[in-house]
């Protein structure tokens, strides 16, 4: 455990120095650590694949609800890996899965976000409390300020929208950023000093 903590600390110091300083020695060390990180990530991908296959094979064996989806997943996983291994990851067959299936499915999911936002907004924008009324009012002003029709209704909508975004919203965003950046550094100090070591398997 102590060795793991020491390795984390030394590597983190090297990467921090690489970020702030220009030095050939530090750069060499930093780039080596980054390369090791890529190797570890590749091993982690192998572990993830084992986890995925184990869970879905059990689902198929036990014929759990929608087990057919697990079967499809295993077939696609094996066939895609096979195509990549035997035909290469730049072959048209390999790319077909990405361009013909994965990308359209990803785009579909992304497009669905609009509908999910609409249903969430419908609930959030009900003027039941002072907070939600303020949210509704500001939301309407910002939307009208962004849409051309807003300027036609009242010429000051874009001006008001710009002020809302640049002054109160920006102040809140900067407060969030400053707080999160400082909080992130504090988490880093806790992890690197070994105070937080749950990720290494050390319980409180």
């Amino acid at each position: 455990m102590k060795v793991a903590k020491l390795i984390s600390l030394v590597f983190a110091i090297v990467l921090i120095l690489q970020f702030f300083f220009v030095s050939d020695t530090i750069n060499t060390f930093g780039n080596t650590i980054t390369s090791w990180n890529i190797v570890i990530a590749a091993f982690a991908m192998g572990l993830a694949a084992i986890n995925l296959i184990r869970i879905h094979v059990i689902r198929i064996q036990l014929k759990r609800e929608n087990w057919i989806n697990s079967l499809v997943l295993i077939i696609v996983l094996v066939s895609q890996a096979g195509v990549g291994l035997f035909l290469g990851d730049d072959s048209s067959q390999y790319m077909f899965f990405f361009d013909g299936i994965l990308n359209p499915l990803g785009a579909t999911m992304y497009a669905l976000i609009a509908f999910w936002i609409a249903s969430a907004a419908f609930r959030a924008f009900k003027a039941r409390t002072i907070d939600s009324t303020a949210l509704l009012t500001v939301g309407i002003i910002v939307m009208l300020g962004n849409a051309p029709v807003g300027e036609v209704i009242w010429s000051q909508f874009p001006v008001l929208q710009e002020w809302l975004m640049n002054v109160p919203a920006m102040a809140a965003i900067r407060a969030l950023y400053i707080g999160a950046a400082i909080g992130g550094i504090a988490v880093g100090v806790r992890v690197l000093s070994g105070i937080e070591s749950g990720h290494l398997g050390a319980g409180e």
Partner: protein
Amino acid sequence: MYKNLWGCNLMTFANNQFFAFISFILIVGFVVYKIVQAQNGKIPAIRRIAGLDAIEEAVGRATEMGRPVHYSPGVGALDAATFAGLELLDLVAKQVARYGADLIVTIRQPIVLPIAEEVVKTGYRSAGVEEAYNPDSVRFISQEQFAYAAGTMGIMEREQVAANLMLGYFLAESILLAETGFKAGAIQIAGTDNRSQVPFFVTTCDYVLIGEELFAAGAVASQNPLKLGSIAGQDLAKIYAIALLVIGSVAANFGITAISNLLSK
């Protein structure tokens, strides 16, 4: 701008990093100073975080309903928000183990998987019920963002999760997961440092940890004096940031550019 460090030619500052480095050292110094103070018995009082208190309620509710708790440490790799999410996963795993509820942890980044497994296992061990740990509770879904979202949404719907905890770094999948949790009737607690996703969580979840609350939550939950000390150190760092903002703004209004010049170095 390049500067020599302490007049030494071994290293020079990277572009515009001089002041950033000084600030970084100061902030780390504040945090370490307060940790040392806490170690010496001066433990700071930190306010409770509503979302954090609700986690136990959510786990208890899931146990009573006989439905699982879903936990996502976000979609980021090993960044600060993910570590904060894993810190809270430790708390959730202990509570789930103590109550005897079921836990499902969905993972997007392969590198996070072994760490999450270790954290959950440790949580069960700490609760004294290591034998109750189910290796299938931590599930890798996909590294593809929307495949992860689709897989997790499917799990939440099929398993009808009673609690949906999303604590870490999230992108556009935040609204998809939160709305699915809402439709499943789950009590939802979310937290992220990604400001563009905060509005989605605020509109869909019961409790939201915004920005630094996410980083503080694990420390507050553990009541570990050293971790609480680090939170008090954050407050000193914030005073430093506010002082820079106020002095810089006032100085800029009087035409003095010394602070803004210093910030750009």
